[in-house]
C-alpha cells in the first residue's frame, strides 16, 4: 500500500495540534506523503489527481473534524488518476470524540485505523469493567423519580440525591398537564410516595454530590448532606414548629409569590414528609444560638436539633444518572415586558402556582392586591384569596426563546402550557377575555394540535404575532401587537400578563459537568452520545442523562427518556459484559488491534 494522508479542517481546529498528528501519521506503515491542507481548503480534483499519480498512491486518508465534506473531491481525483475509488478513507475526529484531554490520542487513533483501512468502531472496543449493582440518581424531579422507580422495581439499589428538602421538582408545582388536563399531582404524588417507601431506594434529600472519581462500573461518589436539623424519621409534620416560627421569607416552591417560615415543609405532599430548617434565614442559626430557638422548645416529638452538623456520605455506584432539570430565564433582563416593574406581569411558573389548588389563593385566579406591610412600612403587591379576578389576560409566547439575544432555541413546552393556561383561566373565570400572542404554534406531540384547536374553539383570541411591548397607561396595562393573519394591529387592555419564559439549564449544571467530565452543548444542556441513536448515554460510560437537563422536553418525553435510561442501567448490570469506556483503550492497543483486523 502507498498511502497519502491529507488533513483538512472545516472548523478552525485550534484545540488540536495538527502538526503533531501529521508527524505521527508520517511514521505509520505505508504512508508516502502527508499534507496539511489547512482550514476550509478549496481543492481541485485535477491537481489532486496529479499528486496521486506522481506519488503513485493507492489509498487516500482524509483526516479532519469533518472529512466527509471533502470525500467527493478526493473520490473524483482517484477516479481521474484511475485508482480504486473505494480507497478513500476517512479519519473523522469529531465523530470519534476527539475532544478534551484525550483529543490528540483519539485523533491519532482514528488516523491509524483509517490508514489500515479498518473502521474505528471495529477496532476500538473498550474492555468491560465489572459493574457495581447500585445506581446514583442526581436530581429528584419526575425524570429522577421515574428512573429510580424503574431500576428499584427491577430489584437494584438506587441512591436518589436531591438538593432541596423534597423530591418532586418542577412537576410538583404544576396544576394540570397538557394536553389531557390531568392533575399533575395525581400522577406525581403516588410515584413520590413509592420512592419514599421503596426498600431499594435510599432517598438523600437536602444533599449534593461533591466529588466523583473512579471508572465506569465503579464510581466512588461523595455526597454532602446539609443538616436538615429535623429528624426525618420522627417528624410527623404537625406544623407546630412552623406556626411558632417568627421568620418569613419567600417560598421557593411557590416561586416567591408567597412567604414561608424559616422552618418549613416545601408543600404538604412533600416526600420525605418532614419539616426542615432553612439555615439562611433561621434566627437561631444566624445569631449563633443566641436568639430564638422557640421551635425546638415547642416540638412535641422533640425531633428538632438546631445544632446538627453537616455530614458526608461515601458511596460506591456502578452507574450515574443525571436528571438535574432546568430553570427559567431571568426575565427581568428583558425590559420591554415590564416584569418586576408592573405587579401583574407574571412568569409562567408563578401563574402555575397561582392557579394550583394548593397555592396561595386556593386556586382562584386573581390580580395582585396592594397591601400595607406593617413590618417594613411599605406597600406591597400580593396575592390574596379575596383579590379581584382579571377581566382580560394576555399570554405572551416565546419570551426569551427563539431570540438570538437570549435563547436561540425553542423551549418546546411554552406553546402548549400557554394554551393550557388559557383553558384554565376560561374555566375558572366566567366572561374573561384571554389573548394568546404567538409566533409559531408548536403543537408537536400526540393530541397537541387537537388541544390547540380546542383552545381556539373555546373562544381564546389567538393572535399570530408576537407582542414586544407591555405598557402601563393610567394604571391600565396595554398589550400591543400585529395580528398577521387578520392583517391588522391589535391593542388590548389587560389586567394580567403571563410570560411564557424560556428555559435554561439549572444553576448547578456546569459544576456537575465538570465533576463528571460530561460535555455540554453551546446552550448549556448536557450533550448526549448521539442525538438520534443514543439520546440517553453520554460520552463517558456508565453516566446517563434524563429529562430536561439534556434539552427542553415535556413530561411524556421526560418520563420516556427516564425509563430508557433505566433500561440502559439495567442492561449494563444484567448483561454480564460490564461497561467500559473508550478512554480506557490506549493508542498502542488500537494500533496493535488495527493490524489484526482484516476487511475486504
Amino acid at each position, binding site marked *: 500500500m502507498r498511502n497519502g494522508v491529507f488533513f483538512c479542517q472545516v472548523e478552525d481546529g485550534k484545540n488540536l495540534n495538527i502538526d503533531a498528528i501529521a508527524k505521527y501519521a508520517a511514521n505509520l506503515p505505508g504512508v508516502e506523503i502527508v499534507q496539511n491542507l489547512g482550514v476550509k481548503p478549496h481543492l481541485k480534483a485535477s491537481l489532486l489527481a496529479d499528486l496521486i499519480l506522481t506519488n503513485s498512491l493507492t489509498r487516500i486518508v482524509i483526516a479532519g473534524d469533518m472529512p466527509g465534506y471533502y470525500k467527493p473531491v478526493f473520490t473524483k481525483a482517484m477516479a481521474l488518476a484511475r485508482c480504486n475509488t473505494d480507497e478513500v478513507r476517512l479519519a473523522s475526529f469529531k465523530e470519534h470524540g476527539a475532544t478534551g484531554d484525550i483529543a490528540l490520542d483519539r485523533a491519532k487513533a482514528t488516523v491509524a485505523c483509517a490508514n489500515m483501512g479498518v473502521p474505528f468502531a471495529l477496532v476500538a472496543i473498550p474492555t468491560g469493567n465489572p459493574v457495581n449493582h447500585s445506581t446514583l440518581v442526581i436530581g429528584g424531579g419526575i425524570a429522577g423519580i421515574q428512573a429510580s422507580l424503574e431500576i428499584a422495581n427491577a430489584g437494584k439499589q438506587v441512591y436518589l440525591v436531591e438538593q432541596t428538602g423534597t423530591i418532586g421538582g418542577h412537576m410538583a408545582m404544576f396544576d394540570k398537564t397538557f394536553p389531557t388536563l390531568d392533575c399533575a399531582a395525581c400522577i406525581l404524588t403516588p410515584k413520590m410516595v413509592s420512592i419514599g417507601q421503596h426498600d431499594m431506594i435510599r432517598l438523600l434529600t437536602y444533599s449534593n454530590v461533591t466529588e466523583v472519581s473512579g471508572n465506569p462500573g465503579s464510581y466512588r461518589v461523595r455526597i454532602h448532606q446539609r443538616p436538615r436539623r429535623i429528624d426525618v424519621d420522627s417528624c410527623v409534620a404537625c406544623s407546630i414548629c412552623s406556626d411558632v416560627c417568627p421568620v418569613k421569607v419567600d417560598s421557593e416552591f411557590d416561586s416567591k409569590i408567597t412567604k414561608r417560615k424559616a422552618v418549613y415543609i416545601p408543600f404538604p405532599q412533600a416526600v420525605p414528609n418532614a419539616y426542615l430548617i432553612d439555615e439562611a434565614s433561621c434566627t437561631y442559626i444566624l445569631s449563633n444560638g443566641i436568639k430564638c430557638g422557640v421551635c425546638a422548645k415547642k416540638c412535641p416529638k422533640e425531633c428538632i436539633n438546631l445544632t446538627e452538623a453537616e455530614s458526608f456520605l461515601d458511596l460506591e455506584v456502578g452507574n450515574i444518572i443525571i436528571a438535574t432539570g432546568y430553570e427559567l430565564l431571568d426575565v427581568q433582563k428583558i425590559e*420591554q415586558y415590564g416584569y418586576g416593574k408592573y405587579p401583574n406581569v407574571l412568569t409562567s411558573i408563578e401563574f402555575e402556582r397561582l392557579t394550583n389548588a394548593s397555592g396561595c389563593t386556593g386556586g382562584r385566579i386573581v390580580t395582585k392586591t396592594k397591601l400595607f406591610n406593617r413590618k417594613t412600612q411599605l406597600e406591597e403587591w400580593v396575592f390574596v384569596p379575596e383579590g379581584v379576578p382579571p377581566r*382580560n389576560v394576555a399570554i405572551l409566547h*416565546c419570551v426569551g426563546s*427563539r*431570540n*438570538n*439575544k437570549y435563547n436561540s432555541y425553542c423551549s418546546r413546552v411554552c406553546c402548549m402550557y400557554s394554551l393550557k393556561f388559557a383553558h384554565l383561566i376560561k374555566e375558572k373565570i366566567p366572561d374573561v*377575555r384571554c389573548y394568546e400572542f404567538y*409566533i*409559531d404554534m408548536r403543537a408537536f406531540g400526540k393530541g397537541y394540535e387537537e388541544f390547540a384547536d380546542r383552545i381556539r374553539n373555546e373562544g381564546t383570541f389567538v393572535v399570530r*404575532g*408576537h*407582542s*414586544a*411591548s407591555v405598557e402601563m397607561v393610567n394604571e391600565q396595562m396595554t398589550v*400591543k*401587537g*400585529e*395580528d*398577521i393573519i*387578520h*392583517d*391588522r*394591529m*391589535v*391593542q*388590548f*387592555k389587560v389586567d394580567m400578563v403571563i410570560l411564557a419564559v424560556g428555559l435554561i439549564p439549572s444553576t448547578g449544571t456546569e459544576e456537575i459537568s465538570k465533576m463528571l467530565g460530561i460535555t455540554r452543548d453551546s446552550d448549556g444542556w448536557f450533550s448526549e452520545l448521539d442525538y438520534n441513536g443514543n439520546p440517553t448515554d453520554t460520552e463517558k460510560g456508565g453516566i446517563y442523562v434524563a429529562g430536561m437537563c439534556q434539552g427542553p422536553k415535556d413530561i411524556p418525553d421526560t418520563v420516556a427518556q427516564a425509563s430508557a435510561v433505566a433500561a440502559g442501567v439495567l442492561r449494563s448490570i444484567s448483561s454480564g459484559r460490564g461497561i467500559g469506556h473508550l478512554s480506557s483503550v490506549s493508542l498502542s492497543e488500537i494500533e496493535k488491534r488495527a493490524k489484526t483486523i482484516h476487511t475486504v
Partner: protein
Amino acid sequence: MAIRVNPKLIDDLERFGAEDVKFCYHCGDCSTVCFHADEVYRFPRKSMRYLQMGLGRKIETTLEPWLCYYCGQCSEQCPREADPGETMMSLRRWLISRYDITGIARLFFKSLTTEILAVIGVALLTGAFLLFYGLSQGNFSIYDGEGAFLPSHFIHSFDLLVGACLAVFLLINAVRMWFFVMVRGTSFPVPWWLYPKKLYLMVWHFFSQKRYSECERKRNTKVFMPWIVHLGLMLGYVIMLVLVMGFVEKLQYGPRIIWPVHIFGYLATIGLTIGTIYFIRNRLIRKNYVQYKKSHSTDWVFVILLFVIVLTGISQHIFHRTGLNEFANVTYIIHLMAVVPWLLRMPFSKWSHLVYRPLAMYFAEIRREALKRQGAVLPAYSY
C-alpha cells in the same frame, strides 16, 4: 394585476445594504414597537414579507419605506437580528433607483467606483469649462464687477441651467413615483379633490419633519438632537439653493456685506456646517447607534462632497472679503466643481428624499382618506 415574483430580489437588495432579510420569521415585534406603524401602514414586517416573497412590483407601489425615519428600535428588538431598520433604509435606496428613469441611481448604488468616476468626471468637466470661460474673457485677479474672472451674471445663468437639469430629473422621477403609487398601486378610486385638500401636508412635512421628531420619543430625552440637526441641515440646504438660484449676484457682491441677503447665507452655512460635522461624527464614532452601524458607500460620497462644498464656500467668501481675489477665484472654482456634481447627483442619490419624503406623506394621507371613504380601514382591534 398579475403578480410577478422575483426570487432574486433579496440578493439584489443586498447591494443596497440589507443583508439579513432572510432571517425574518415574522413575529411582528418590529411593527409593534414602531411609532409610525398604524392600521393602514403597517411596517417594517410587511415590507420584509414582500421582500421574502420577491414581490418587487408590489413594493414599488408601497409608501411604507418613506414613512420610516430609522429610529432603529425595530432592529434593537428583532429576535432574529434581521435588521428591519436597515432593510427599510435599503428599500428607500432601492425605491430611488426604481423611480429614477435613467437607471443612473441603480448604477451608483451598486458600484462605488462608477459613482466616484462620475463625480470626478463631472467635476473635471465643470472645472475645465469654468477655467476656459474665465481665461477667455476675464482677469484672474478680479473676483467680481467689471472684467471679473467668473462674472456673477454668468454664474447665475450657469446655476439656473444646472438647477433646470436637476428640476427636470426630479420632476420626472416624482411623476413616476406618483404613477407607481397612486395609479398602479391604488386599485380603489381616489377623488381628485383630495389632492388639493391634502396639499398643505406636503409643505408641513417638508418644513417641520414632524415624523422624524416622533422617532426620538424612544430615547426619552427632552432635546431631539438628530431631528434638530437634520432640520437645520435641510433648511440650510434649501435657503442656500434659493440664494444661489435667485440672488447669486447679490451674494457675490463685495467686499461690502449686504446684510439682508448675506444673513440668510450665514444662517444656512451654520446649519450646513453643524449638520455635516454632526453626521460625519455619528457615522465615524457613534457606531453603537443602530442607524449608523452600516453606512452605505453613497452616504460617504454625500457627506464628504458636502463637507468640501461647505469648506470651500466659506473660504471663498472670506478670501473675497479680505481682498485675496486670486485665492477667492481658485476656491470658487473648486467650490463649483463640487457643487455641480453634487447637485446633478441629487436625483440619483439618497438626497432626493428631500422630495420623495414629503410627497410620500402627502400621497399616504390621500390614500388613507380614500381608503376610509371605501370603508376599508379597520381600526386597531381592541377592547
